[in-house]
């Protein structure tokens, strides 16, 4: 059986900032939801169900904040589900919405992510709590050094350098100037990045994402619903896949193992499946723009390789050649990406939202020319959970 066709018909984002003291978590969630519904040209009463993307409870200081948010999102009396795969939650939420409609049981589903991590004094002390209390938590591992481990392996394996990573930061921050929703809007030079404060070797301050507050929402609808409301601009969802890797990072660190921690193998596998579903044979040629979940510069290097935009180990050189610039062969993160805004629960959802805006050519200043197909990714856990979503302007 073929899944029912569906697409994104509305997108809403708040501006991403450090803190929002004027609203509570549900109020923040509702902002993006209301914008997305308005963008779709429908109302809360028109939706059949809600999927809520909420990552780490402890970042909000509320155990299961979805309970508090359900009514604010029009969930009263309706099917409502919360998904949580850490940073990948937004991607998982879109996929969950996809399955709602693809199964034929739903016509219109609202997918929302909301993040107020600005209320915890240090996100990294919370992120330490994702690691195993028996074997790894006491070693002070957090999301920064978790990515440092990948960076040093990538450097050793392929000769990638801190300079290559800096190029990613420079491009992201330049792109973010075109994005009214971006949190960090300050250009940097390669030297600025290289001379910024060392956080966890080899990652320096400007290699790292900010911690952001904000929400994002998308409205998914079936083909028949889209016909009924006569929506013209639709980002059709053509491919969805996710892949989970092993919890223990050390399981992926052995000279002879194929699933090497340097390489984001689970992203490679998810992409392969999503491309296959979307009928993409040559991602390099067929994908016009990518919104990649990469909270650190080094993460993006491994990701573009896993997505098949270049060979393994060549991401550094490709960055030197400008392949991922706005006017390059495959523009990566025209929004500025996660390096310029990371509201964790909403981040992977924002990647899909930004990719959808590209596909329907509503990305404003950050619009890439001639977008037919876009890919968006999510990443969560110990570089463990990956989601890949392929969008197209053709059904």
């Amino acid at each position, binding site marked *: *059986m073929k*899944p029912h066709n569906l697409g994104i018909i509305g997108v809403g984002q708040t501006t991403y900032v450090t803190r929002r003291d004027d609203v*509570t978590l549900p109020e923040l969630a509702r902002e993006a939801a209301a914008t997305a519904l308005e963008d779709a040209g429908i109302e809360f009463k028109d939706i059949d169900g809600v999927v809520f993307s*909420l*990552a*780490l*409870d*402890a970042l909000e*200081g*509320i*155990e*299961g904040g*979805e*309970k508090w948010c*359900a*009514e604010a999102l029009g*969930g*009263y*009396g*309706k*099917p*409502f*589900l*919360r*998904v*949580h*795969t*850490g940073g990948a939650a937004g991607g*998982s939420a879109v*996929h*969950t919405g*996809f*399955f*709602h409609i*693809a*199964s*034929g*049981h739903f016509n219109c589903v609202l997918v929302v992510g909301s993040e107020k991590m600005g209320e915890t004094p240090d996100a990294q002390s919370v992120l330490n*709590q*994702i690691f*195993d*209390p028996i074997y790894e938590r006491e070693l002070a591992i957090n999301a920064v050094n978790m990515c440092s481990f990948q960076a040093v392996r990538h450097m050793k394996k392929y000769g990638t350098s801190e300079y290559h990573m800096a190029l990613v930061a420079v491009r992201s921050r330049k792109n973010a100037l075109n994005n009214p929703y971006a949190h960090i809007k300050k250009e940097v030079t390669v030297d600025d990045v290289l001379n910024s404060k060392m956080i966890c070797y080899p990652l320096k301050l400007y290699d790292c994402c900010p911690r952001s507050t904000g929400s994002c929402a998308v409205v998914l609808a079936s083909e028949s619903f889209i016909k009924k409301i006569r929506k013209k601009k639709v980002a059709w969802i053509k491919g*969805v896949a*996710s*892949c*989970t*890797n*092993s*919890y223990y990072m050390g399981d992926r660190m052995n000279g002879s193992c194929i*699933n090497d921690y340097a390489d984001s*193998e*689970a992203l490679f*596998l*998810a992409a392969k*499946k999503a491309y296959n*579903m979307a009928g993409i044979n040559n991602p390099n040629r067929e994908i016009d723009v990518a919104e990649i979940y990469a909270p650190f510069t080094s993460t993006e290097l491994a990701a573009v390789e896993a997505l098949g935009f270049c060979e393994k180990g060549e991401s550094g050189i490709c960055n030197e050649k400008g392949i991922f610039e706005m006017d390059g062969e495959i523009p990566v993160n025209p929004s500025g990406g996660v390096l310029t805004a990371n509201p964790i629960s909403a981040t992977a959802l924002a990647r899909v939202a930004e990719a959808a805006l590209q596909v329907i050519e509503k990305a404003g200043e950050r619009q890439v020319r001639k977008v037919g197909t876009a890919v968006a990714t999510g990443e*969560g*856990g110990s570089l*463990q*959970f990956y989601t890949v979503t392929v969008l197209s302007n053709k059904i």
Partner: protein
Amino acid sequence: MKVAIIGVGQTSYGEHKKKSIDELVFESTQKALYDSGLQRDEIESVVTTGSDGLDGRAISNMITAGSSGAYLKDEVKVSDGGIYGLVMGYLRVASGLFDNSLIVSWTKSTESSPELVSNMAYDPFFLRDCGFNSVTSLAIEASAYVNIAKVKENDAADVVLKNRRNATRNHLSHLSGSPSKRAIISSNFVSYPIRKGHLPPKSDGACALVMASEKKAKSLDKYPAWILGLGWSRGEYEAGGGDSNKLFSLGKSSKMAYKMAKIKNPVDEIDVAEVSDITAYHEMMIYEALGFCGYGEGKELINDGVTKFGGKLPVNPSGGILSSNPIFASSLVRVAEAALQVMGHAGKRQVNNAEVALAHGFTAMSTQGSCVVILGN
């Protein structure tokens, strides 16, 4: 697209000091795979459900993904009660994208303080500081119920006795055997009107199911439990609204599930039910919200023996949550037990001629979210 449950795996419920959380999960997953006849390699999709707060891990499926069979698989965690894992699995298989899905849920209730964790679920401004938690919020619903529906201590005690008696037929159960009615009625109030004797134990345990598409299920040499109906819905965050003892979300969910399963008269058409008896009072409220009887008549189903083992519509032949409560997994256990009934694999607790079964679970605080599943053979 029809979807079926083709395998069930459960650990025993109780205190599991010798097993870490992923070891418990592994046990249930391995049992479900064995029961389904599938190998891990054949699994296409995995759905996990657990509570980070109860597990003490900020993304708890990081550790349990491997033990749920998800290594390099398409996996997702639903952070709503275990039965929502079944919802997710259903949608995934029904979309036609996956031929099968493993559903796994767990909780080690003895490793933390569920009441304290649930207090953190309340908003930091209005409810948390007022002592709301998983017991007090249920007590507020129960007190409205006791007062308006004129439910007696005796009725609540009879619910507990029924379920604990049923549990003697379930070798996996945490508690079993009948306490004396006097012991229940004289047990301390935890939060009025709920006494200690009206509450479930704190259990460790894990439960796993294997779901499959119609094509896959029919290709196997066995009788699966078909999903005939499914409904899930949300109500209010704050307990204590005027009608909170009418379990709004459950009424909505059951209507959705009955419509899909084409059930008009639940008492006549359903042969057995496994519901989330999170307190003795709630089992009676659940009967009413499910349309087994009118408002305030739940006690009569108990008094008349309609829902006892051997009655017209046996409820919780497994012993229910009052006998075993691995919190997040408890609602998936309801589905597992209902599936075993329609498959004819429920052993000593098998209800005769169980062709249609209902499973029910709650999620979120008090009874804010509900899910109803109708299974048939």
